[in-house]
């Protein structure tokens, strides 16, 4: 496997507080890396640092220039309430503007009807908006995805749809995916590697099936978590 990303001795401080403490890991092309951790463990900060939004110490090396698709946490329909943007207008903000046929295909893949195109983005429900955002991210055919809690606000069935879709696209287009999620079943079913973060610098990193066990989870989340392995 070709190594895509190498992170060595990464340290990130925000306003004088240490968020990420001496973290090292690497990601090969085509892997799905899930980033686990309790609230405040620095998952989103890690994604943002890898994306180049935050200052850091240590080294982050991309071995090939990635074409990134980013689905941020915290962009929701309420954020666009003040914009007179239809869903179609929202897609037209991309550069280059994807053609209509392609947009419709992706809307369909995430489970949205074609007439969603003409609805005001700010009036979609939370779940619909999130699906739309997933389609928005995927439509420009990125080869590296950063998904920060992609199923926020989506009901359980809908979450499954999004993850199956991600999986399908992953298999088809040989994507590399960075995923932040709290959903442990998803982690187990859909990721190849896991990186767990905690503030004290006790990180763990490895193949999902090797390191996902109750002891590790307890260490990460601090409480005992019931976890059933799927067969």
């Amino acid at each position, binding site marked *: 496997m070709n190594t895509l990303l190498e992170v060595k001795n990464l340290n990130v401080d925000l306003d004088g507080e240490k968020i990420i403490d001496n973290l090292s890991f690497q990601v090969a092309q085509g892997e799905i890396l899930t980033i686990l951790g309790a609230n405040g463990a620095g998952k989103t900060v890690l994604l943002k640092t890898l994306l180049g939004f935050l200052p850091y110490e240590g080294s982050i090396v991309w071995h090939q220039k990635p074409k990134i698709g980013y689905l941020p946490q915290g962009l929701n329909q309420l954020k666009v309430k003040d914009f*007179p943007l239809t869903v179609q207008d929202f897609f037209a903000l*991309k550069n280059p503007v994807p053609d209509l046929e392609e947009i419709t295909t992706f809307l369909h893949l995430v489970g949205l009807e074609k007439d969603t195109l*003409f609805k005001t983005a700010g009036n979609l429900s939370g779940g619909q908006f999130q699906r739309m955002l997933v389609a928005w991210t995927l439509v420009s055919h990125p080869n590296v995805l950063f998904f920060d809690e992609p199923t926020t606000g989506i009901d359980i069935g809908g979450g499954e749809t999004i993850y199956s879709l991600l999986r399908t696209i992953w298999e088809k287009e040989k994507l590399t995916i960075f995923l932040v999620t709290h959903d442990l079943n998803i982690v187990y079913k859909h990721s190849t590697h896991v990186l767990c973060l905690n503030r004290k610098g006790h990180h763990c990193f490895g193949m999902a099936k090797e390191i996902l066990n109750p002891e590790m989870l307890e260490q990460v989340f601090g409480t005992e978590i019931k976890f059933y392995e799927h067969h």
Partner: protein
Amino acid sequence: MSFQLIFTLISGIFISGVAGYLGTLMLSKKMSVVAGPLAHLAFPGVALALIFGFNISLGVFPFVIMGAILIWLLEERTKLPMENLAAIIFASGVGTALLFLPIDKAEEALIGSIEKITPWETTIVVVLSLLVFYVVKRLYQKMMLMNVYEDLAVIEGINIKLYNLLYLLSIAIVVALGVYLVGGLITAALIAIPAASAKNISKGLRSYKMWAIVLGTVSAIAGIFIARFARLPTGPMVVVSGVILFLISVIFRRQLF
């Protein structure tokens, strides 16, 4: 129709059209109010022009553009919201101006003097309006994405710093032109009102932009004619026409749900 009226109409239409268009971007960035402070920055320029006896516009442009660049630099440095920085710039502009401005001669600066515009000035207004229109059209989609969510804009490869500067310079030029039409006191109205009315009656981006331009130009035409026949000051009348159109738009507000 006199030539003077024609020049007034042409400049009025161009200024308020481009102000309405730019206003749609500023409304979505919640920045409509920034135009006000910037326009007030024209006052020190006006003061200098009055004291040394040169054309007021020559005083206005450098100050407003300098103000825009200052806001841009301070935003980069301090990460404070632009509207906040604009308030600081505004205070310094007006404060300095009031020290020196001969208030009794400042009427032009307060309410504009478009009814006296010369052919040469009209040409400059048209050229600058077209230039700003072109620039805003080029940066529109990218600015809109920056307004929605800046991180996504970075991922899409947009040079945030550069676009913010172009955006602020466009605002500065429109504001300086607005000072001509309606004066420094109410220039923000040219930018804020058409966009607000347009938002009331449109659903998508296209109609939003189109209505803002239409309503901007209509309020300029209506204001100029009404002021002429009722012997009222032109600038304030343009703004009042805009307000009336806004009230009508409130009545027609489309139920989007």
